[in-house]
């Protein structure tokens, strides 16, 4: 049931863009994205709901392909503060989230 994320890790220079992918074998209500910095709790970034509604962030956007059961997170013009581990979490019903294994993003100057 656990969604699959790719890549597992990525290193960027400041200002570069990145895409993180998340796919599932289950039909989905929604996709959530969280970021966790080292030693801290995961923090909500955005939710993409079935039907295309998106709640998000200025320089971070995402897409949700319901048919393919995939979501992608787009980080534009990355900043040092973007470093952390990004998790997608898939909601298949009943308020539960199934978290992916994470993508470690490192932004260097």
């Amino acid at each position, binding site marked *: 049931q*656990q969604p699959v994320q790719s890549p597992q890790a990525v290193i960027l220079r400041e200002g570069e863009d990145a895409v993180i992918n998340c796919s599932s074998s289950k039909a989905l209500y929604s996709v959530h994205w969280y970021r966790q910095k080292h030693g801290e709790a*995961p923090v909500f970034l955005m939710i993409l709901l079935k039907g295309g509604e998106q709640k998000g962030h200025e320089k971070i956007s995402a897409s949700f392909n319901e048919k393919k059961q995939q979501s992608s997170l787009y980080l534009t013009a990355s900043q040092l503060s973007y470093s952390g581990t990004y998790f997608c979490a898939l909601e298949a019903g009943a308020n539960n989230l199934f978290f992916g294994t994470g993508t470690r993003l490192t932004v260097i100057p």
Partner: protein
Amino acid sequence: DVKVTQSSRYLVKRTGEKVFLECVQDMDHENMFWYRQDPGLGLRLIYFSYDVKMKEKGDIPEGYSVSREKKERFSLILESASTNQTSMYLCASSLWTSGTGGETQYFGPGTRLLVL
């Protein structure tokens, strides 16, 4: 601001001990969750609760139990701690929805448990 607190940041216990991890949220959320986080495995759901005295098993409930006597408090219990339960434990809460989805989970800071 939603606040989720956990009773300890770090805990060291011996094999066979009974361990209690406490979680409290202050936003009147119906849903509460316990996860464990291990390197390379992401967050895995242990138990969750939609209401007081109500609990549901997650993906990996074996060796754990939970208690929810009050809406704001959700406890995770390791009946007899084992070394393979060494992990980071994260509590989260969210509002309940009627199945349409889309509620954010708010996480506590985590408890890093070491079982010797």
